[in-house]
């Protein structure tokens, strides 16, 4: 039987994988991917609680999160395309212009 604990564990594992990916990967596309994994980890937690508590609000929020994630990826990939065009690479370490 799959309990709430299992679902939350899965959610936590996904969240941490995403977090580590966001911090360690250098390719900007991989960072965006990791962000998606974080969001999905959170989504699973929402759905799990929604299921456990019999309350649909959590699932509704998940839809919102998915929409926002889609938009975010759109913007993020557009920035990645522009970066390739302008600088010819997608390495996050090289993008240091936002410095003092």
């Amino acid at each position: 039987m799959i309990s709430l604990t299992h679902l939350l564990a899965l959610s936590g594992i996904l969240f941490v994988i995403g977090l580590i990916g966001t911090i360690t990967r250098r390719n900007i596309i991989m960072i965006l991917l990791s962000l998606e994994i974080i969001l999905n980890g959170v989504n699973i937690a929402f759905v799990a609680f929604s299921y456990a508590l019999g309350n649909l609000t959590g699932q509704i929020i998940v839809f919102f999160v998915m929409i926002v994630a889609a938009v975010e990826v759109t913007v993020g990939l557009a920035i990645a395309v522009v970066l390739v065009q302008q600088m010819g690479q997608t390495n996050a370490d090289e993008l240091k212009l936002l410095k003092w």
Partner: protein
Amino acid sequence: MVEHQEIARAAAAHTVAPAGWLAWTILFLPLAAFLAITFLTRKSKLLSTSLAIGSMAIGLAATGTLLLHLLRAGEHAAYQYTVNWITLPGLAVEFGLLINPLSVLMSLVVTGVGLMIFLYSIGYMADDAAYSRYFAYLSLFAFSMLGIVLANNFVTLFMSWELVGASSYLLIGFWYDKPAAADAGKKAFLVNRIADFGFLAGILMLWSIAGNQLDPKTLNLIELEQRMPGLIAQWGVNLFSPLSIAALLIFCGAVGKSAQFPLHVWLPDAMQGPTPVSALMHAATMVAAGVYMICRVFFLFGEVPGALEIIAVIGGFTSIFAASMALVENDIKRILAYSTLSQLGTMVMALGLGGYTAGMYHLSTHAFFKALLFLGAGCVIHAMHSNNIWHMGGLKKAMPVTTALFFIGSLALAGIWPLSGFWSKDEILALAFGKCKILWTVGTVTAGMTAYYMGRVLCVVFLGEQRDHHAHPHEVPPVMYMPLIVLAIFSVVGGFIGIPSLLHHAKGVHVEFNKLVALISSAAAAGGLLLAFKVYGKQPQEDPFAVRFKGLTRLLTSKYYIDDIYGWLNTNIQQRTALVSAWVERNVIMSFLVNGTAKITGLSGSLLTKFQTGKVQAYALSLVAGIGILIYVGWRCIP
């Protein structure tokens, strides 16, 4: 928003208050003349003169009308005209005039003597390039002085007080291309600044103790007078009660303006200004403002005996101290300046002894004969182009009118019966005789010294033969001696026109004529004059006194080294304090506090910029670390 209030007093109940515009006219016409001359008629001598003189003449006429009103209304009459000026919660400042016998008497002196001196100036300043500027300044001075005289509250009074200081500065330094004149102006201004600081502190102190839960704090003189009994009950009147301290601080203002010891040093130097200015401001009116102000606030001074004693001693000391310096002075205007100091000291002494009427009486007569003497000296200077009495001599042949007038002024100042100076000085001496024998002795000795130095001036300047044969003295034009004749008439009859009776309702001590005192002071005056005629009557070429008493003369001509002491204090104490302060300012305040703050900010900024790597992932890492810390703290601390 003009409010006309009449102070309801029994004696005045049946009379109608004089129209408010009368009082406002007296005050504001000179200001209008000043503005008009400065901005419109500067180019025209005739227009500027007529504006200035017209405003004074109308002011004199209006004052006369007010006097008639007051005489009809009885001696307790007082009228107040106010405009609300600043109204804030807890602070209501008004701009107002208070017409009572005291202010009308002083206003008569200011406009009357002022008018004579304005007329005289036409002749004296005729050849001056800055003629219109001179009359503009005189008008400004008249406005400020009348502001002091008529003000009904301390704010208006203090404002006018400062304006008088400013116009005094402008007029002393009128010939600003002469370094001595410019310096004298500065000196007068700075010395008065010290005194006015005390004055302001006194006003604020009085203000802060004047209110209670029922009545808001006030600076209105009549309000304060009505509250005095309550304040006395609350604070007491010993020397260290707030009332005494406030009175002494307010007296500080008078010490500056009326040039009492130890702030007398500016007045002799102020003689660098044009002579009519010396006559108007530094003899007759402005320097009397301090004495007048004490009278105006006498409801306070009269209640604090400890402070009054200090005032009397300062006044008595100034009077004999200044008279001694006049004994050896060789500049005719400075002799008169020291004499003014000495007479002001006598007035302050009278006030300190509680003699409100006596002080004001002497102020009024002194204004007439001292203005007369200064203008007479102006005629002599005009004719001889020199201030030194040892260059003059035998002027009675060339200038008979001036000589006669100067004699009248000198005898009035010396206190010879029946001239005005005799009556007013005698009132003060009789008062002192009854109250304090030491001060009476000081006053009598001063009277003798006064007679002596005036006799010296008369002998050296007017009698005998001419010493300097290069000069060709001539009688002055009528426009210059006619005002002198008017002043001389008042100097003669000033004792009979009932000045004291105008003030007799007031608080303070009333004195009866005392035959013994009158006899002794007359003897002192006559003795002084005779001694002077004996010493100086033989036409000496240099001062026999200076030859005989070399050491004493040196002490007196160096003004008891007071200027030197102040100079020493300036260079050694003030200058060094300034250097230390400058060092502290530069090294502690600037480099440590001000720049130090900037440096710490800059340093922490440059440290913090190290975290701004520009790498997005570093930011993400610190974000995660921060959240981690928050979760850990939350987990540990929240039970």
